[in-house]
C-alpha cells in the first residue's frame, strides 16, 4: 500500500495547472499574423480553422507539469508498504499426561479450545502444529480459510503418544512466532522451553493426583511348573496419600485384588504368585479398580504364555524330534497356517521363511571328525557345552553365505554357521543320523542353545515384562520460568521508498526537456541565420 511521509506536500498538486496557464500566457506572444494560411499547412490543410484565436499552450507544458507533479510527489516522500501475516508455530505437548481429565475435558481438548480462542483475532495466515513426542510425524498446517474445521482437524491429529519425547533442536531455523502448549509436567519440556525462542507459553491443567502402574512382569516359578511369579510396581504422583484398589484379571475373572495405600511420590512393589490353572485367558490385565484423572496409566497387560511355537519342514530324524520335544517351552506344530516364531527345516529344501530358522542340512556322505571342536559364539549355553570330537560326523558345506559366521569349527571346517540378518538362520552341517552325539545328553542342550541363539531369547529362563516410563505419569505442573516476553503474531511490514525512483525520473524528464529545448533553439538559431 502506498504511504506518504510528508503528505502536506500533496497540497501543492492543484498548483500544477498554473504551469499550463504560464505556457498559455507565453504562447499568446507567439501569435503571428500571416498573409494567408493557405501555404502554412504543409501536411494537411484541414488543420486550418476559421475559429477565433484560442491561445493553446505549447505541448511541452505537459512535460513540465509532469516534472512538477513528480517533484511534488517526491517531496511528499512516498513509500510502498507491504504487510505480511506472520506464521505461527505451535509446539504441542502431546504426551500421555496431556490426556489428564480436567473439569472441562482432557488437557488436550482444553488446550485446543484455548489455542483457537487466542488465535482467532490474530493476523495469522497459517498455523503449524508440531508434535513434541514424534520427531518423524509430519507437521499439521492449518490455513486461515479453513478456520471452522481447525478443532476437528487438531483433535484427530493430536493422538496420545506414549513414546519418549523427541524435542526438536532446529526450532531457531524456523521463521515465525513460536508458542508452546504444555501442562509443564515434564521437566525436559520445561528445560527445552527455556533454551528455545518460544515467545508464548500456554500451560494447561491443574490436577495433581495420579497413580500409575509402572511395570508388570511374570516368570515361571522355578520349583513349581504350574505357577507364575509376578511383580508389579505402582507409583503415585501427587500431594496427598491415596487408597487404590489393584485388581488382576484373566479374561473377566478377577484373579487377585489388593488394597494399596499410596503416599505422595511413593513407588510400591507388589509381588504375588499366579496359579496357572486359574488362568483362563493368555492375557493378564492388571488395573486399578477406580480410574483417576489419567486413565492411560491405570492398567498394564501381559501375555502369560511362555511357549515358543515352532514349525517343522521336511523329514527330520527322530533323534532331532525327541530333542525338540524335550524342550520345556517349545511347541512343534505341523500346520503351516498357524503363526509360529521358529522354523525348523530338515534337508536341503529351498524355503524362505519369515521367522528365525534352524536348517539341518543333509548330504550323501559325511566325514568323520578328527579335529578338536571350537566354539566361536558368545552364547553362554553353547560356549559352555563341551563336545567330544569323536561324537561328530559332518557334511561338507557346499556354499558359504556372505553374512554368515561360523560358530562351531572343526579345524578349518565350519560345522554350524549363523546368519544374523536379514533373517536369523542357523545352518547345521553335523550328520545327525551317523553322529554319536545324538545318544548323549549334550545333544538336547546343543539344540536348546541353537534355538536360544536363533531366536535371541533365553527360553529356559523366560521373563515377561511390560512397563511404561514413570515420568509419563507425572501430571503435576512443575515450576517453569515464564520470564520471556510474550509475543503475538503481528503484521510484518516492509517499506520501500519510491523517492529515489521519482528523482531519477525527474532527471530523465529534465533531460528530455533539455533535448527538446536544445533542438528548438537550434532551429531558432538556423532560422535567424
Amino acid at each position, binding site marked *: 500500500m502506498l504511504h506518504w511521509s510528508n503528505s502536506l506536500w500533496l497540497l501543492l498538486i492543484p498548483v500544477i495547472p498554473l504551469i499550463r496557464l504560464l505556457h498559455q500566457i507565453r504562447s499568446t506572444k507567439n*501569435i503571428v499574423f*500571416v498573409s494567408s494560411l493557405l*501555404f*502554412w499547412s504543409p501536411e494537411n490543410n484541414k488543420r486550418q480553422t476559421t475559429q477565433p*484565436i484560442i491561445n493553446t499552450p505549447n505541448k511541452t507544458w505537459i512535460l513540465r507539469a509532469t516534472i512538477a507533479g513528480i517533484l511534488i510527489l517526491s517531496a511528499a516522500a512516498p513509500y510502498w508498504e507491504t504487510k505480511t501475516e506472520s506464521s505461527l508455530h505451535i509446539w504441542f505437548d502431546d504426551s500421555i499426561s496431556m490426556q489428564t481429565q480436567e473439569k472441562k475435558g482432557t488437557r488436550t481438548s482444553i488446550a485446543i479450545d484455548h489455542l483457537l480462542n487466542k488465535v482467532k483475532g490474530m493476523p495469522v495466515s497459517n498455523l503449524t502444529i508440531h508434535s513434541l513426542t514424534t520427531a518423524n510425524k509430519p507437521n499439521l498446517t492449518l490455513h486461515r480459510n479453513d478456520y471452522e474445521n481447525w478443532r476437528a482437524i487438531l483433535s484427530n491429529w493430536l493422538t496420545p503418544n506414549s513414546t519418549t519425547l523427541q524435542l526438536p533442536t532446529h526450532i531457531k531455523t524456523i521463521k515465525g512466532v513460536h508458542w508452546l502448549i504444555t501442562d509443564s509436567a515434564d521437566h525436559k519440556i520445561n528445560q527445552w522451553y527455556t533454551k528455545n525462542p518460544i515467545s508464548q507459553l500456554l500451560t494447561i491443567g491443574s490436577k495433581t493426583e495420579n497413580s500409575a502402574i509402572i511395570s508388570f512382569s511374570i516368570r515361571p516359578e522355578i520349583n513349581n511348573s504350574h505357577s507364575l511369579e509376578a511383580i508389579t510396581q505402582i507409583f503415585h504422583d501427587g500431594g496427598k496419600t491415596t487408597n487404590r484398589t489393584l485388581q488382576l484379571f484373566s479374561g473377566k475373572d478377577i484373579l487377585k485384588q489388593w488394597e494399596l495405600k499410596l503416599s505422595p511420590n511413593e513407588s510400591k512393589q507388589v509381588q504375588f504368585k499366579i496359579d496357572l490353572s486359574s488362568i483362563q485367558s493368555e492375557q493378564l490385565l492388571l488395573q486399578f479398580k477406580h480410574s483417576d484423572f489419567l486413565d492411560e496409566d491405570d492398567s498394564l497387560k501381559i501375555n502369560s504364555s511362555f511357549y515358543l511355537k515352532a514349525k517343522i519342514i521336511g523329514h527330520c530324524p527322530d533323534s532331532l524330534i525327541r530333542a525338540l520335544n524335550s524342550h520345556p517351552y517349545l511347541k512343534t506344530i505341523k500346520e503351516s497356517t498357524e503363526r509360529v516364531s521358529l522354523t525348523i527345516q530338515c534337508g536341503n529344501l529351498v524355503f524362505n521363511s519369515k521367522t528365525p530358522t534352524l536348517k539341518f542340512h543333509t548330504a550323501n556322505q559325511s566325514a568323520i571328525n578328527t579335529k578338536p571342536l571350537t566354539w566361536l559364539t558368545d552364547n553362554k549355553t553353547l560356549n559352555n557345552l563341551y563336545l567330544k570330537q569323536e561324537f561328530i560326523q559332518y557334511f561338507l558345506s557346499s556354499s558359504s553365505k556372505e553374512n554368515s559366521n561360523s560358530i562351531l569349527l572343526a579345524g578349518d571346517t565350519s560345522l554350524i554357521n549363523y546368519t544374523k540378518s536379514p533373517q536369523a538362520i542357523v545352518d547345521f552341517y553335523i550328520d545327525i543320523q551317523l553322529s554319536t552325539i545324538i545318544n548323549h545328553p549334550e545333544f538336547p542342550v546343543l539344540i536348546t542353545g541353537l534355538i536360544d541363539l536363533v531366536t535371541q531369547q533365553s527360553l529356559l529362563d523366560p521373563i515377561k515384562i511390560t512397563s511404561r516410563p514413570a515420568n509419563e505419569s507425572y501430571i503435576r505442573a512443575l515450576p517453569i520460568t515464564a520470564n520471556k516476553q510474550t509475543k503475538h503474531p503481528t503484521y510484518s511490514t516492509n517499506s520501500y521508498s519510491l523517492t529515489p525512483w521519482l528523482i531519477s525520473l525527474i532527471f530523465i524528464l529534465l533531460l528530455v526537456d533539455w533535448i527538446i529545448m536544445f533542438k528548438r533553439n537550434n532551429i*531558432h538559431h538556423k532560422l535567424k541565420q
Partner: protein
Amino acid sequence: MEKIRNKQVLPDITELEALCRIAQQKSFNPQLFSRVCQSNNKVILGKNEFSGTQKYCPGDEIRFINWRTSARSNELQVQQQYIEQNNRWYICIDSSASMGLPDTNKWLLSIQVACAISYILLNTGNKLSIIFFDEKVNGFIPLGLGKRQFKKIYLSLQQHHPRPKGGDSLLHRCIPLLKTPSKTLIISDFLKPDMMKTDLKYLAAMKNQIHILHVMEQQEYLLTQTDLILSDIESGGTQHFNTTTENINRVRENFKQQHLELKSFCQKHGYHYSFSNTNQSWQDATIKHIRRL
C-alpha cells in the same frame, strides 16, 4: 501593423522620367507604348493632334485605315478611335490586408511599380485608370489622360493603404468599372485558394488584355520563432505551426508552387505575367514587367 507612409516612398518625377527614358531607349515591348512600327523599329509616341489619325503600323486592322488622310500624306494613316480603344489601361491594385504583411514592403513595391507604369503609360498617350480593391472597390480613378491624370493617380497611391485586418481579394468587384476592350494590369500577391483564376478568366472573356504583376514578400515564410500560432490576417483562421526546418521548407515549396502554377496558368491563357520579390527595387520590378510585355 506599421502605418505605411506612401508619400515618402513613391518615386519622384525625376526618377520616373529617367525610367521612362530608359524604357524608350531600350525599346521595350511596343505594345506597352502607343504605337511601334515593326518596319523601322521606331517607337511612335503620342497621336497626330491635327488629323485625328496615326501612322499605320503593320498589324493594324485595314478597316480602320483613313484612306483620305493617307492619300493626302502619302503614307497610311489609321483612325484615332481605333487607337483610343487600344490605349485604354486599367491598373487594379489589391489592397487587401494580406498586401500589408508581413511588413510594408509588398504594398510599397506594388504602389511604386503602379506609379512608375502609370507615368510611362500616361506619358505615351494611354488612357489610364486606377482601381483599389479588396472585397470591394476602395478607390477608383476613372480613365484619363495627361499630367493631371497622373497627379490624381499619384495622390491616390499616396492616400491608399491596405486594410489592417479582414477582407478578401475579389477582383471581379472591379469588372463593372472596366470599359472593354482594354488592358488591365493586376498587381496582387494572389494569396487566394484559386489565385483569382476565375476572375481572371472572366476578365479575359470581356476582351480585356490581362497583365499580371505577382508581388511576393521575400520574408513571407521566414519565421524566427518556434511553435507559433499563425493567424490569417484576412479570414481570422488560426493554426499551430511548429517551426522546424522541414516545415519551413514545405511552406517555401508551397509558395514556390503557387508562383509556378500562376505563371503556368498565365502562359497557358496568354496573360502577361511577371513576378517581383520585395528584395527588388521598384525600377527593376517595373522594367522586368514591361520587358515581358
